[in-house]
């Protein structure tokens, strides 16, 4: 039979199977970084509390997302709020990944990686600034954090600021618990909050 259709065998050979683009993509990420076009780099970091999506601008780490957050939704949010120039580019996050590994292995108490707080504004940002004052292995109540942040009555707003912390683990909102000593809620799940506090108590 005469082949006359555009889906002739040779065209099928030209259009598939899909090539492995991983080395080209890695090269693109490296060149984008060099050209100053990599506005948001991201990667995942495996931890005992699940895989974290970690994203950074040239200024520092911008976002840490728990597995409870859909990665596609997180990346779309970053594209909308920061820049659509978002690429999977692990190299920029080497230090963050190393520090998270050390933390979860019990070998790190304080994070040194640069942070970019542009996703937190106003009082939420003020609250985040005070969280590192709660040392490794200790906790504070929402009311205590509200007082430290200059608005003693804003206990509920502190809860919101913690729940919407764009940089969990690195900025220790897990150390904020209820005044009656119960853990309260956590964006990564109450179970994860327990894991982190047990790790720090060990």
């Amino acid at each position: 039979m005469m082949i006359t259709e555009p889906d002739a065998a040779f065209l099928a050979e030209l259009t598939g199977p899909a090539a492995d683009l991983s080395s080209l993509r890695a090269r693109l990420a490296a060149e984008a970084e060099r050209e100053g076009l990599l506005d948001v780099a991201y990667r995942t970091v495996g931890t005992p509390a699940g895989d974290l999506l970690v994203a950074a601008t040239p200024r520092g780490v911008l976002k840490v997302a728990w597995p409870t957050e859909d990665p596609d939704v997180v990346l779309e949010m970053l594209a909308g709020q920061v820049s659509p120039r978002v690429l999977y580019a692990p190299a920029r996050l080497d230090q963050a990944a190393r520090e998270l590994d050390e933390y979860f292995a019990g070998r790190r108490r304080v994070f040194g990686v640069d942070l970019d707080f542009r996703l937190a504004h106003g009082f939420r940002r003020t609250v985040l600034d005070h969280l590192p004052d709660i040392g490794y292995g200790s906790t504070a109540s929402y009311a205590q954090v509200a007082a430290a942040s200059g608005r003693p009555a804003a206990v509920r707003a502190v809860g919101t600021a913690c729940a919407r912390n764009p940089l969990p683990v690195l900025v220790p909102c897990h150390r904020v618990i209820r005044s009656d000593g119960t853990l309260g809620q956590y964006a990564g799940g109450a179970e994860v909050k327990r894991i982190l506090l047990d790790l720090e108590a060990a």
Partner: protein
Amino acid sequence: MPPFEQIVTEHGAVVLRVCRAMLPPADADDAWSETFLAALRAYPDLPPGSNVRAWLATIAHRKAIDRHRAAARAPVPAGALPDRPSPHGIPTEPDTGLWAAVRALPPKQRGAVAYHYLADLPYAEVGRLLGTSEAAARRSAADGVAALRRSYAGQETS
């Protein structure tokens, strides 16, 4: 606006096919990188609702032409050059005789085959990219496919 990573995921393979249709493997990889780097630079200003694949094909087309021009200007070596490992790793696809056959087509036919059959663009868009009418683009694609069919049949029997 979707994160650029998603644009690479959705259109990376198509852009590589267009580059491979125009350029030999190592050059095609370079053209792919240049295309996506240029696209990344311009991406925040891309008007909403744009045809992203056509936009990328336009950039790839321009990069391929730049490389052809650069190759034409480059001095021709007097003898055979020794084989050197590519600085870019293993080529992403084997350079079968078929890709070479596509590259050997006259420019208009090659472009029409690449943009219509490999990038799945409508003939009106193909004509715009090639600077010809929609009808001429359709004719070039048909002529190109006919030429490829002959060379493919030749390959199978050889």
